[in-house]
């Protein structure tokens, strides 16, 4: 026998619950999209990797010595 915990409230509030679910999903999509756009606008990500307080010579642009 299938156990069903059902109340008439669930049916009555179906529309509201679905609406709230959609709004929450939309909110998550907006925050995710904003994060992606903001991170993409940061430019060259390597500039942040240099801020780890540890010297990493491989990140320093190599310059040719002109004689």
């Amino acid at each position, binding site marked *: 026998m299938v156990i069903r915990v059902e109340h*008439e*409230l669930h049916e*009555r*509030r179906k*529309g*509201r619950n*679905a*609406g709230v679910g959609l709004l929450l999903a939309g909110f998550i999509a*907006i925050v995710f*999209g*904003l994060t992606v*756009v903001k991170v993409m*606008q940061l430019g060259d990500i390597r500039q942040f990797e240099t801020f780890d307080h540890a010297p990493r010579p491989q990140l320093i642009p190599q310059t040719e010595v002109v004689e």
Partner: protein
Amino acid sequence: MTDFSANNHATTEAEMGDYFALLKPRVMSLVVFTALVGLLVAPVPVHPFLGFVAILCIAVGAGASGALNMWWDADIDAVMKRTAGRPIPSGRVAPGEALGIGVALSGFSILLLGLATNFLAAALLAFTIFFYLVVYSMWLKRATPQNIVIGGAAGAFPPMIGWAVATGGVSIESLLMFALIFMWTPPHFWALALFVKSDYGRAGVPMLTETHGRDATRRHVLVYTLLLVPVALGLGLTSIGGPVYMAVAVVMNAWFLKGAVDIWRRDDAACEADRHRVEINVFKVSLYYLFAHFGALLAEAALRLYGLGGWSW
């Protein structure tokens, strides 16, 4: 009644649509349109997704102020026939719920707009909500028949917010877009008041047609239309204007002004005789007027993409 609804003050259960109705969706559509134009005509390009989020925030902020207005004005709404069916007076939404939704959506829209774009735009949105709720709804609406004049500022801010989203500032262009809607609101609204039988008087809200009479209202329509013309034409001389906008502005202002003069020349007998034909026409023209001006600004911006817009070519 179930145990879950025993403490519910509303007489019937609210649907999602009732909460949506709290946000005054019809007002929201004008807000979205003018804010979008303000954003698109600005000289600084905005990432499409950030632009979308900004417009959404402005729309939600406008909706929040609508909900707060319905919360505050529930007593007036219950008395008037036009508004008696709104969610609060009809008992579908409890006043406290409307207040909660209004406050929550205000905070949400202001904060998200600030984080997504800049805090000047967010501050302008916050001020708009404050202005609509406190200055218009709480203070002016029940105090003076000039309520619509100063209160109209709340509806005039959206293009300025859109501009601030893109540029991060305020300029003569955004101020004139604000002034255009600000000066347009009184003649638009009073033209409507002249042919709609309202029960504002019964609700204790002073309306110009009832406090000063219909002749005074006709004079006001003409004076405010005269004041509107230089604002509309002046906007055409700024960096977002151009020949297309100017041509539209000249035609629309001549049309609107002619209507305002026609209204001014009439009396109650003439209105009754043709069932307010002129007033209804002017009200319709006022709607085309605003749409045409902002549409022309958008057309100028689109032409600018091809090197054709503005006065430079």
